[in-house]
């Protein structure tokens, strides 16, 4: 098991499977606020839902209204369980706080893979590799 230490942005505990994006996420226009599905054209997570996942990505981008999108996801019950960033910025940090989503930054995202079982507890992030990353779909 891998144990990573980060910096608490929003205190909390969570346990679930990881969804990892190598690219930043812009929530306004990038994630459907009703379903939690990533809709940004060309985004590596396009078509996947952030709902109920430990969502790991380098950091946020885009409009400050993105904070409200995180709140809206939580309101609809389709928010991520927790957010892990390499370096956080205001949009996602404020969104996590107002939506009560545990958030830790200064985490090396590259050490986590989609499908890993992750426990977030304050500044600690425990990563258990339970599934290999799926091979890319053919065609």
């Amino acid at each position, binding site marked *: 098991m891998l144990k990573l230490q980060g910096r608490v942005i929003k205190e909390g505990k969570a346990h679930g499977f990881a969804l990892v994006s190598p690219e930043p996420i812009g929530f306004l226009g990038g994630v459907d606020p009703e379903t939690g599905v990533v809709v940004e054209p060309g985004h590596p997570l396009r078509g996947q839902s952030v709902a109920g996942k430990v969502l790991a990505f380098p950091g946020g981008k885009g409009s400050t*209204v993105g*904070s409200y999108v995180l709140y*809206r996801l939580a309101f*609809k019950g389709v928010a991520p369980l927790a957010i892990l960033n390499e370096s956080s910025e*205001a949009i996602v940090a*404020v969104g996590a706080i*107002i939506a009560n989503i545990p958030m830790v930054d200064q985490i090396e995202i590259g050490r986590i893979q989609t499908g890993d079982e992750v426990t977030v507890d304050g500044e600690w992030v425990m990563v258990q590799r339970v599934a290999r990353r799926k091979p890319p779909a053919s065609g």
Partner: protein
Amino acid sequence: MLRPYTRGSIIGRVTTMRLTQQEQKMLSGKEGPAAQKAMEIVAALGKIYGAADLVPVESVQVAGVSYKNLGDAGIQFLREWARQGARVRVPTLLNPAGADMENWHALGIPEEFVLRQLEVLDAYAQMGIPATCSCAPYLIGNVPRLGDHLAWSESSAVSFANSVLGARTNREGGPSALAAAICGRTARYGLHLTENRRATHVVRVLCPLRTEVDFGVLGYIVGKRVGSGVPYFSRNGIAWNGEGVSATLRLRALAAAMAASGAVALFHVQGVTPESELDGIIRPDAQEIEIESLEEGYEKLSAPLRRIDFVSIGCPHASLEELSDIAKYLAGRRVRATLWITTARATRERAMAAGWAQAIEKAGGHVVSDTCLVVAPVEALGVRNMATNSAKMAFYAPSHSGLQVRLGTMTECLEAAVEGRWVSRRRRAC
């Protein structure tokens, strides 16, 4: 500047921010859940951007007011915070709402929209924030002083307060500004620190700037070039001050456009803005930019429209001086196109007292308060071709409201409003 920690260099570093006893009380929840959430936001931003401590703010200006941007989740969020007991500790004003809250019916704004908008304003009122909705609070009595720390959101107001007035504010998001109002503090980072107020670019303008629109178009071009940098304009024989339109309106048009096309929150103008003469105001590694022509900006922002069915003046919100000029121009005339002059309610009331608002309305124009075209549901008005004197408006209207735009001076726009088509044959600056 304003850059969060990057991977590798600081990972694992523990940063501590000094909090006073009262700030710690708020953070621990001893002043209630609303103050706790607000302090969590302020403290998290301080942590992210490496602030040493928090700084009390003199005033706050909150974006995230129009229902068009907030949606139902936004209303829910504001209500919940108000219900938890959120109350502001410092004078706080709002950005424009999505509708004129008195005249909406005559302006064609749908009733359901107005009802939702009222819910937003009610939630803010519960927190102690009056429904003074303006993107130019400095025109209606909230004039920050040199060195004041603020937490303002509206990008053009942020730039005007930092640059022209010498106050200190970062460009806050809606919830972070509101958090600062509830705590009475913001984290001391970014433009609150003298070091970050030094110019990153020196701009030399080599073509003449004749009208307020030229200043806006210049802002559009420079904003795209410098992004979130701090430009310093050398004087270069430009009439930054006076000649017809006041310096305030020129610098405001410049500020608004630079903040829209880029993320410029502070600029200096040699010998004009208050920090421009300070020692070391230009960083030694500042890049030089020369602007030889405004043509590229005009081409991007302005289409050669003939028919004009909508004219927008007042982005940012019109001053009393502008309302007086418009009233004079429209005396004895009648507009064919829909004419909206957006302004703060307080300014509208002063224009009423002077008889100017009535004169404009007699000519068929609307003096619209509380709102602006960028955040109003313009789709509902059924208009297509807009004339405006605001480069900022020309930048946003095509994507936000699906309108085509022709850019010109205030007089050219009023002329187009009267004729219902563009009539000016003036050649643009350079």
